[in-house]
Structure formats: C-alpha cells, structure tokens
C-alpha cells in the first residue's frame, strides 16, 4: 500500500483524492490493513469460504413480464434527461 496504489484504486473507484489528502488516507488505510492482517494468525487452509450465512439456494422466477413503463416516475427529478434519454458528456471510445 503506497501512494501509487492509492491513486490506482481511487481511479478504479472513480473517487478524486486531492494531493493533500493522500497522506491521511494512506495512514488510515495502513492502520486498517494492520488490523486486517490479524486474520493471518489463524490457518484456514482447509476451510471453505462462506459467501452466505445460510445454506440457501437461488429461487427462480417464472419468465413473465411484470413491469410496466415507469420512465416518467424514474426521471422525474432528473435535470439531465432529453427525450427520455439519460444525457452525459460525450464519450469517445
């Protein structure tokens, strides 16, 4: 974890970190990682990772259309709409 990493991560996460904030962030992140490193005090080689606390399986939904056009409702408070489109600055691929 260093300044470069922070810059890379903040770009991935689309968050602006000002130069004068980087040191602070670096310090707190390092502290957190120290805390997190305590996990290594336990050997977990034979443990399966747990992504859900209960052993449930995914329910399946029948293939029926159940939503109607609510565009007006969803776009009500958005100033950046034109003719039903969401508008953003021009993207160049």
């Amino acid at each position, binding site marked *: 974890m260093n300044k470069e990493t922070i810059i890379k991560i903040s770009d991935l996460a689309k968050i602006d970190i000002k130069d004068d904030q980087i040191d602070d962030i670096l310090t707190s992140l390092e502290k957190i990682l120290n805390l997190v490193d305590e996990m290594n005090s336990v050997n977990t080689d034979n443990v399966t990772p747990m992504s859900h606390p209960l052993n449930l399986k995914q329910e399946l939904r029948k293939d029926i259309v159940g*939503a109607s056009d609510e565009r007006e409702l969803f776009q009500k408070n958005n100033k950046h709409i034109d003719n*039903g489109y969401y508008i953003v600055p021009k993207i160049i691929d």
Partner: protein
Amino acid sequence: MWESVIGLEIHVQLNTKSKIFSPASTNFGAPQNTQACAIDLGMPGVLPVLNEEAIIMAIKFGIAVGSEILDNSIFARKNYFYPDLPKGYQISQYEIPIVSGGAMEIIINGKSKIINLTRAHLEEDAGKSIHDLYPNKSAIDLNRAGTPLIEIVSEPEMGNAEEAVQYLKNIHSLVRYLGISDGNMQEGSFRCDANISLKKKGSAALGTRAEIKNINSFKYVESAINHEIERQAAILDKGDSVVQETRLYDPSKDETRSMRSKVEANDYRYFPDPDLLPVSISKDLIEEIKRNMPELPSAKKIRFISQYGLSEYDTIILVSDRELSEYFENILKGSDLNPKMTANWIITEVLALAKKTYLSVKDYPVSSEDLKYLLSNVTNETISSKQAKDVFERMWDNKENPRDIIENEGMKQISDIGKLNKIVDNIIKNNYKSVEEYQGGKDKLLGFFVGQVMKETQGQGNPKIINQLLKEKLKK
C-alpha cells in the same frame, strides 16, 4: 512462417420474455428507457431475482454441445464504470459457470474438425450508448440493460478465417435450432469477438493476442480476421511485438483500429454476487430438458441423408435452418412426393425467391401445404415442371391460389395421346430435313422437335409423352 491461433467469444441474446434479473420486457425496439425498471436502472435498494427460463436455455445449449452442466453455479460481479452499466457492475459468471466444456464440429472441404468450447455462462447485457444524437453529449438508453446473454467461449483452436466462420455459423444455427435466440446479428442478438494471435509454425508457445470487437456479420468476421492476421504478421516480420489490446473492426474501411480507452487497465475485481445464491441444478431437471430437446442439426443431417437419400450438399442447405428443414418435411408429410425432387425444388426455386426478398421461412408467402399441392400436380403429370415454375412465381409474388390457377386457367398439361400424336405428326411432316438429319445420327435434334411441339401446345404439352412419341415416330 506464422500460424494463426483464433478463439471466438460469442454473446448470444436469449429470447426470454423478461430480463434475466428483472421482470421488465425484453421486446426489441421500444422507445428509449420505457423497458427499464428500477432493478435495470440500478436504483438504491433494489435486488436481482433470477429468471428460470434463462437457466433452462443455458442448460439446453450445454446439452446440445455435449458439455457438463455445473451444479451450484455462481453469479459474480464484474466491476467497472460505464454509463450504459447502471449498477457500476455487470452480473456475470466467473467461477463455476453454468456450462463447462463442450464441442462443436465444423466441416472444411469435407473434412471434419472439432472445436472445443471452454465454457458458456450467463450474464446480463448492458444498455446502449448513442454518441451521434447530440454534438457534445452521449445519450443513454437502458432498455437493453438486463437482457439475458449467454457468452460462449471457444478454445483457441481455429487456424484461419474459414474455420472461424464455419464455427460461428454452426453456433448460430444451433441457437436458432434450440429456439433460445433469434440470432439476429443486425439487431445485436448475436455478437462475436475474436481473439487472434500468431505463433511461429510448429512452436508451442502462443503469441500475444489482440481482441477484435464489433463484428456483426459473417462476412465481416472473415474480413476482420484476415485483416488482423495480416496486420500482426507485418508487425512480427519486422521483428516488433504485438500489443495486447482491444481493437474495433471498422467495416467501411475494412480495418481494425485500437480502442482508445480503458480495457487493458481495468481490474474487474470479480467476486460472488452476495445478492444471488448458488443455483442448484438437479439431475432430474437436466434429464427433463434433455427429453424435450428438439432434433439437433447434426442428427437431422444424418437422418435426412439416410431417410431421404439426399446428397450431403443438399442436406446441409436444408438443415442449416431449422424452420426450412421443417418446411421441407411438412411438404413430404402425407404425400408421395419424391424427397430429392422436393429438395431440389426448394433449393432452386424457393430459396432463390426468398433470397431476393430476404425472407425467413416463417414469412414465406407460400405455405408448405400449397407447395405440396403444386408439386403433387407435377408428380401426377397434371402440369409440367415448367408450368409449375410459372404458377409458383405467381403464388409467391401475388399470393395466388394454385388450385384456382390450375383448375380455372386450364393449365392442365396436355397429356391426351391422340391430340399430341396429331401435333407430333404435323411437326415431323413439316420438318423432314431435320428428320433426315436426326435419323442420320444427329441425336441432339430431338430437343428441337420437342421444342416445336411445345410451341404448338403453348408450353402445356406433357414433355414425357412428347419425348416418347417423338422417339418412336422418328425411328427409321
């Protein structure tokens, strides 16, 4: 000097009625953002719920390619930012995809080659970004966001553009056969990305590969791949290295160009989606789907050849489109029509007209029943083959009823031996010079006589009988 190594990633839109994780409609062509519900918009607090039909379709595909269907399949989040990706992540699959392995046979110059599949997995489609509606802005339409896709990944086992196109066509045909997609490349329901690299002939080590995106026709696949192979060969010949990157194919210029942005630098940070649980797929479900599978192109081809005695060439054409093969068999059903003759008729007459107007079988103006009637009348010699062709054109272009035409317009072939005898005698009498030449050995002149008789009968003479009579009477 260089060997090409090609792998294809195909994204197929599944034709479910609703989206993979939301109940919004998947209908094509709706006004922008009218088919994007809260879940598709990634609004705060919403959650995905899995569409059963998407799972069933994926399993169908897996069974058809002989793959393994994995139990406890997991959905994962692929994280990146793009305006047509509302949640800032795409729900896809990473570890434990629903389909693993499998294979697709291709035939090149009569030789069979097996292309292995790595995997096929389910994921949601993104929305559409439109860049040419406004000068300085881009417009986002999220109707497509959430449509189910199956991503089919091949092993890098194709060696040239021809193999790649064959593979692509076979997968295309298969998904249409299975009824899981309409495979419409123009509308974007069947998209292909190609991964291409070159390596030294005989070497085991793979070269650096480039990914070509945005190929939306079979023709372009061929051009794009060939162009890319040339491009990479030129670089390597110079002694330089190929850059691992994503390139877009530009059909207007027939070239690929580097994509300006992002993708190389992206770290997708895949992790299992905590809002979705592992999908339990029982052996019973797989068996049930297996039992209800339609006949697949490979099996149908073998059957057509043995059952109907058709040539491989003709069979491949008929079998390439499931609906066409059904059209063919519907014509044969309950009739005593000759399969070869029927196949020939479809291939030469029907497909010629269909191609002109880009029609798919379901939109043919001539039903299999009507064509069956027409062809039966040829078989029982009520009308001649030539007459049938004319009638068929009228049926196709004007939707005329063949029964009306044949009955009411007296199109019936003239098979009356007495009548024909008189005409034949007449022609022979008036062409004694040619008769002499024919009797002297010019066998080809028979065609001339037949033509003359046909002229006299306004094309309605029964050619078989005419031939017979002439041959007899012209004998010395």
